[in-house]
């Protein structure tokens, strides 16, 4: 059986979802030779592949212009996209800033005490979106894994189903936010 081509992405999140993914422990070892990790913060591959990804798990909300680009690229290259965790599903903690203009935030956080170089970095820093958005407001999402972070068992349940080519049947307590 050919290996499932898997990718994971980390947008505006705390990496807790990726930690929880690793927390699957020995199940991950059992699953390891059924997939090939094609792009992930856990690897050193720099660019998201142009095509040919079977399943992409995306952690984090969409908070800046670069996130939009990565999300779209991942969508285009992947058969199945999964929103992994509450930030990707609802916006969650990163979305707390919504309603405050980004310029005000930057000024408040980096303005008064910037002592080195005297000005805010502009080049190479992605522009913040006016408001942080959940993934499904930016791209089509096939499945949603809830939790902050999602419990390892729920991620394992979904991952096993996806590797088997089945729909993840997340029901009841599996769908708990928080």
């Amino acid at each position, binding site marked *: 059986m050919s290996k499932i081509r898997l990718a994971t992405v980390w947008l505006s999140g705390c990496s807790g979802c990726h930690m929880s993914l690793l927390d699957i422990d020995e199940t991950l070892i059992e699953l390891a030779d059924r997939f090939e990790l094609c792009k992930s913060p856990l690897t050193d591959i720099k660019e998201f592949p142009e095509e040919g990804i079977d399943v992409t798990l995306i952690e984090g909300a969409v908070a800046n212009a670069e996130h939009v680009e990565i999300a779209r690229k991942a969508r285009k290259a992947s058969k199945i996209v999964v929103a992994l965790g509450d930030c990707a599903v609802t916006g969650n*903690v990163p979305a707390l800033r919504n309603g405050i203009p980004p310029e005000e935030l930057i000024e408040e956080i980096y303005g008064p005490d910037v002592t080195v170089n005297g000005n805010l970095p502009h080049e190479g820093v992605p522009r913040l979106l006016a408001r942080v958005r959940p993934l499904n407001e930016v791209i089509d999402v096939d499945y949603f894994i809830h939790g902050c972070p999602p419990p390892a068992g729920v991620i394992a349940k979904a991952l096993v189903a996806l590797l088997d080519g089945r729909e993840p049947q997340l*029901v*009841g307590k599996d769908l708990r936010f928080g």
Partner: protein
Amino acid sequence: MRESDVITIKIDGRPIATSAGKSVLQVAKENGIRIPTLCHLDGLSDVGVCRLCLVEIGGKLVTSCTTPVADGMEVRTDTEEIRQHRRTVLELIFAEGNHVCAFCPSNGNCELQDLACELGMEEVRVPYSYPRNRIDATHPRFLIDRDRCVLCGRCVRVCAEVEGAHTWDFAERGRSVRVITDLDIDWGDAGSCTDCGKCVEVCPTGAIIRKGAATAEMEKEPELVADLLERRGDV
């Protein structure tokens, strides 16, 4: 029960003998048929504002908490159409507030969070509104974080109907509706508040909480209203 008071209704095809004067929700409950609810609370009057207890009677969708049973009535509680409507209603409730369960004091003990699980709410399909609501922490023991208020009105009803203080009420209309204390002054200054804490216990979410309750530390006892009324002989 006199013979003449007995009426027969059907819920999901099942014939049930009951008595007039009860709501469809109440009869369903007495017969072990689950209808999801949020604004309903045993002991308080029913107002039908959350719309989650929708059922179908005679081809029309109605709120089961405010519909009295009638002889020969046929009720459906769980069709695909009803499930879709309940899901949409729930999504709108989530999209209207700011629900960050991850650091909510009611995380793990929240009626809204449980409903998302029960109704299989995988995602919210309407854009979130991310409102900026006012938190009022001026009361010495309690606070209200309106980001988590679902406008169920339980606090308003328990305060007026059970405590008799009527500190809480609704202000404004449409999307601007919010709960207020006295004539929209700080809760800490609201002279009618008796500090009884009933609103804390009945609030189904993490909106009204005890001060000092950190993430997942807030547990409530909404059942105390029915208990209290029973002990008062007020049922």
